[in-house]
């Protein structure tokens, strides 16, 4: 009996020793407390990329422990910035690449860029440069880039007050050479300064509302100041009513209260410089329920950009008596599947 016990005991011991797993619990101590070092240099696959030909730049680097790393690409001419981040002990060129897009506008142009690989918890920073030979072409339905002035079918309306600027300009475009200025200063108690309306034909679009993006570059700030509570209303119409039925009013006729219209407010517009705003169509609220209240991108017939601001008159926003409203726009593009900066 005793011999049997001993045999069984030894057998069980062998089973459990053999079962011991060669792993560990919790985060790696090396990651938490180990001294950081590079195992391979920071390599860049293409130092002269032509993004207009769909070329990409791949990155590779290896470290002795997993860290929060960040690759920053900064256009030396445009100031455009692209950031790629991750947490790993390896920057895998099969996974980490750049196709010429940007994290924050303006867009990259044909220019020299400074590259920087930095780490959240380490002081080390690796640097290099590359030169863009061809800039990225963004895919989407371009509504207006204002390169050839205001689109032919577009309608512009504005109040006739002080410094109204509802026209194209070339002094500070987001992309290309021109943009559309929307601003001025109201001399009476009125929020609405003006608008620009574009007719659209979206019948070829197949995306649902949550995958259909309205992307718009917005420039704000004059001499480092912004008007209080200035904002842009984006109205989208799915009405089949003729776009410009009434020729007397300088505005489209498809945004009436009885029609199927959806609205999104970029409010406030309180930054200095350009900012790219991307909104999926499902975030639009019902402005006037003249239709089925279902946002259907392929039924869109028109889009309106309204410039509004808190009036300085009548003591609503007296500080606006001394500053012009500025909600200039450029690069109005509709994209499917993803917003423009994530292309």
């Amino acid at each position: 009996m005793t011999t049997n016990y001993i045999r069984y005991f030894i057998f069980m011991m062998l089973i459990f020793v053999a079962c011991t797993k060669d792993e560990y619990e919790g985060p790696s101590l090396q990651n938490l407390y180990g001294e950081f070092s590079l195992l391979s240099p920071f390599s860049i696959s293409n130092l002269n990329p032509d993004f207009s030909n769909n070329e990409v730049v791949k990155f590779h680097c290896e470290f002795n422990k997993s860290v929060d790393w960040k690759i920053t690409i900064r256009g030396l001419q445009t100031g455009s910035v692209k950031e790629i981040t991750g947490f790993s002990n390896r920057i895998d060129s099969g996974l980490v690449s750049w196709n010429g897009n940007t994290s924050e506008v303006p867009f990259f142009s044909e220019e020299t860029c400074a590259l920087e690989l930095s780490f959240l918890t380490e002081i080390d920073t690796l640097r290099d440069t590359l030169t863009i030979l061809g800039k990225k072409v963004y895919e989407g339905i371009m509504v207006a880039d204002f390169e050839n002035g205001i689109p032919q079918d577009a309608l512009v309306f504005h109040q006739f007050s002080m410094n109204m600027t509802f026209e194209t300009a070339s002094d500070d475009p987001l992309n290309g050479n021109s943009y559309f200025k929307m601003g001025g200063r109201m001399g009476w108690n009125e929020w609405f300064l003006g608008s620009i309306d574009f007719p659209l034909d979206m019948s070829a679009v197949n995306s649902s509302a949550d995958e259909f993006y309205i992307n718009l570059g917005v420039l704000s700030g004059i001499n480092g100041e912004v008007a209080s509570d200035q904002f842009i209303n984006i109205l989208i119409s799915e009405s089949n009513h003729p776009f410009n039925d009434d020729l007397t009013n300088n505005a489209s006729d498809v945004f009436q209260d009885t029609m199927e219209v959806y609205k999104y407010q970029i409010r406030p517009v309180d930054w200095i410089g350009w900012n790219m705003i991307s909104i999926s169509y499902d975030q639009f609220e019902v402005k006037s329920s003249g239709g089925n209240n279902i946002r259907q991108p392929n039924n869109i017939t028109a889009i309106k950009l309204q410039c509004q601001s808190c009036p300085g008159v009548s003591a609503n926003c007296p500080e606006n008596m001394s500053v012009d409203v500025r909600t200039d726009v450029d690069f109005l593009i509709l994209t499917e599947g993803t917003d423009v900066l994530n292309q």
Partner: protein
Amino acid sequence: MNNYFLKIFLLSFSIFQLALSSISQQNEKIWFDGLGRSYFSRDNILSNEDTISPNSMSSGYNLLDLNVHVNPIPNIEVFGQVRVQNQFGGFFGSGTEIDVRQLTARGTLKNKVRFSVGDIYLKQNKYTLHNYDEDLNLYGSDLYNSYKSIIDYENFYQDNRWRLQGLQVDFSYKFDRFIRTLEVDLFTTRPRGSSQLNSALNTFQSDMLLSGGTIYSQISKSISAELNYTILNELPNSGTQLSSVKNPVYQFGLIHQYSAKKFSINSKIQTGLSEKSWSHKVGYDSISHNRLGMFFEYKSEISKLDSSFNLSMGYRYVDPNFRSSAAQSRRIDMAESNLNSIYTIYSNDAVVRPISIFDIISDQNLFNQNISPILMNFNPIFSNALPYGDATPNRVGLFLNGFYKHKKKYFNINFNTSFFSEVIGQGTSRKRTFLTFSQLTKVNLNELFNQRKEFNFSLGYRNQITNREGDSIERINLNSTHIDFKIEKELLEKVYFNFSTKRIKAIGNEYLVSRDDFDEILTFQQVNYNRIDYLHALGIKYQFKRDVYIDVQYNLWGSEFNIANFNDFDFQRLLFIFSIKL
């Protein structure tokens, strides 16, 4: 709430009156026992560096626990315990609390099925339901017996049982073929009731239930078998919490007994499985935070039939994923949020004072009475090898225990040694090893010198060495030494003088584990120790009888950290306890 207590008190008083009137008629229907205690302590700070904390503070109370036992019919007993407690410093009863501490009804149905309802004390196997002793408990030594008895009484610790509220039923059968006996014990309890967490947000904590059973069978004269099962689960619909835990544990054991003329050999082989999972209302899929674990233990012991000698040895494997909340809940949670009662904040930096050996020995409020669904924190200098008892997960190794009692009671020795290793590493593939040796020797000098009055001394020692090889990051070397000494002399009839000292010295480094709400390791905190904790006690005890005594003590205690930016502390205490078991 006050009205509620008033009602309870009036009810108790009515029962008391009723009892007095019925005692004379039917003496066996109602009877009383209980406990009374007067407690007073005065603490002084000795360190000159602390000019912010008060130099001294005192506290104390009188309490009376009145136990009422009522037998309305034969085989049924109703038990209630009412506590009246008065804090010193209260004025005309303003500091007086009246509380119902325990309520239980128990009995036997048809002389076959025993049951208990209300407060019940439960213990099963060491891997399924067990309330392990607190840290620093060396063989239940009586070095600080007055403190220990108060802590155990106030926290309802009885023989490693958890006090729970619920229903327990047990019954047994005898057979004349195949097996000899079959004993069944079943219970269901509610360790935690649904309660409001935040009135503004209207959030509620869920009910937590612990249920289980034991089946034990004497198969033959020498072989018996046991099956234990527990399940801890939260009821998601009874609260607004987004996650609910479920933790079933199964254990099966076979016991072989062999008895000879002078000794017996018992061997036990047992194994078990556990599953711990969280169901989520939002955010996670069904397999998130799900872990399966197992354990295996073989133990064999040889004992002399006169109980003078015992030696046991065995092998144990507990999987890293083995989780048994009812067996792994600790008596003391070493989390920073668990605050000491005395000098909670200390030094001119006004920092929280870490738990020291004095607090573990004396502070009843540090102790936990609840089942914790996740592994609680521990301090490696007090217990690193088996912080969750035998059920500590991620351990594999051998152990050897024993005791010897001298025939003429000159001395007795207890000892234990064990060597464990982690099954898998923490933060690295390298594994910690734990080597522990402990012993307690008590020498009865009065027996040696043939004197009638008590005169004895005890010496306890425990050394635990934790090691992990590897590079400078992985390497661990922690050496913790714990020494206990007590000498006791009966000066006059029933008047005992005693001196005791307890000291822990820990040198080395370790990594403390930080876990999230789902028991997953979040991170490790690197710690270095060069710490000495000490407690010296000098006292006189007058023992009217076994459970009635007056104890007057002087305690000198403190901690030396020997680490920059961490202040040492030294305190002294004068203690008076008058305890009467009715």
